């Protein structure tokens, strides 16, 4: 079992989470050329090593998170909320007296 430290719920079994995919994928604007959509929807680095990937805490807070994980040995290096604003707010609240 992989243990994922959810930023909202604490450390939980990975079976509570649903795997999303490569977190480096950014969807282009809707009117972007087809090549950009082809790249975003179908093409993957498929890294053997440390990658950023999305997971959803489906059986918990249902939030999307970004996990930095080694795909060769499943070691997790960092976890943060997928939503940039929430990630920033969380970092600030942990860093000072808010």
């Amino acid at each position, binding site marked *: *079992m*992989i243990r994922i430290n959810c930023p909202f719920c604490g450390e939980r079994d*990975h*079976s509570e989470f649903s*795997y999303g995919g490569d977190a480096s994928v950014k969807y282009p604007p809707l009117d972007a050329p087809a090549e950009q959509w082809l790249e975003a929807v179908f*093409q*993957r680095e*498929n890294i053997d090593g440390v990658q950023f*990937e999305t997971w959803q805490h489906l059986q918990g807070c249902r939030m999307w998170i970004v996990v930095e994980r080694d795909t060769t040995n*499943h070691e997790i290096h960092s976890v943060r909320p997928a939503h940039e604003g929430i990630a920033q707010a969380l970092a600030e609240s942990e860093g000072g007296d808010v």
Partner: protein
Amino acid sequence: MKRYSAWSVFLNGLTGQKNWDRAWRDPEPKPEYDVVIVGAGLHGLATAYYLARNHGITNVAVVEKGWLGSGNAGRNTTIVRSNYMMPGNRPFYEHSLKLWENLSHDLNYNVMFSQRAHVTLLHSPAARDAAARRYNTMRLTGSDGELWDLPTLKRKIPHLNYGPDARFPIIGASAQLRAGSARHDAVAWGYARAADQRGVDILQNCEVTGVLRDGGKVTGVETVRGVIRAKKVGFAVAGNTSRLWRMAGLGKLPIETHKLQAFVSEPLKPLLDQVVVFGVGGAHFYISQSDKGGMVFGGDLDWYKSYAQRGNLPIVQDVAECATSILPCLSRVRLLRHWSGVMDMTMDGSAFICKTPLDNLYLNAGWNYGGFKASPASGWYFADLVANDRPDPVVELHSLTRFEQGINLDERGAGPDPKRHG
């Protein structure tokens, strides 16, 4: 190299089985070959064999980082079937099944192919309708398929869970009688021996560390046993395709590497004569009994990307639950072994046998769950592609460009999410 026969078994019996030849040589790499195939798994070895047999190209090396058949060749559940429906898949897997039917004779090696029938359980009228469509399509395109009603199924497999309290009551089954299973190691050894006899060099412990390029042209591979130049190079390393792709200086692929677990139980007396598949409401389970008596079974992927050839416990529990729900008689059977292989899961669940952006480089990849049954036809059409520098019409759809053309080959209709194509 002697042919294997009943007579040779008898003669060697007279001399204490001490005079058998090696099944294949262990040659030193030559500096250059006409064709280098990377990966001595079932697909790579089959490709080398058909290059020699169908196209007369024998100056071929198969390079392998471990020992031959050490990857997914030994990490599967040995199911052979052709119950695919989509154009492109249908003729491809049918050709593969036909090759399986004569493979032992062709290779002069008993691959223990057993056409014991592949039985998919049905649990709802909608599933029965979908099966009728699929199996009628198969019958219209040169294959066999049957729908079994409940009394027929009960007669054929009496000990499934037919109880009224079953979570998903069984209403019948679809069956392909020519499908079945084979002995995975024998397939690898049979292809290796037959390719070797025709002059193919199988270079084990020869990991590829780089791909040699001259501009847009591939000219060979760097290995731990030195540089090997080649007029043509073929990749057949499902699970690790993206690694090799990067070595060739190419970018992304429509592939994610996931791992799939499988299991074998302690040996039992004959219990199950068919390959049985159970898939409904999130369950996914397939089981057969090996010739040694072990129950061989598997289920879903581990649901997250991974290059680790080891499985995770939630799937063990999931598969065990499926096993006991459909075959309650297995509840006290102990597991003997359990393994995990890394799969090329593609964006539409179908494979690639195609040319690449580089000249003289050919790709055989993306086998998802289906690599074992596909290996004869995969080798057949990949050898044809490498020899003639153009895909056979049967594998034209198995191209890397199908996504940009919008002609995805999505048998399951699961969309561009690799883990959903199990």
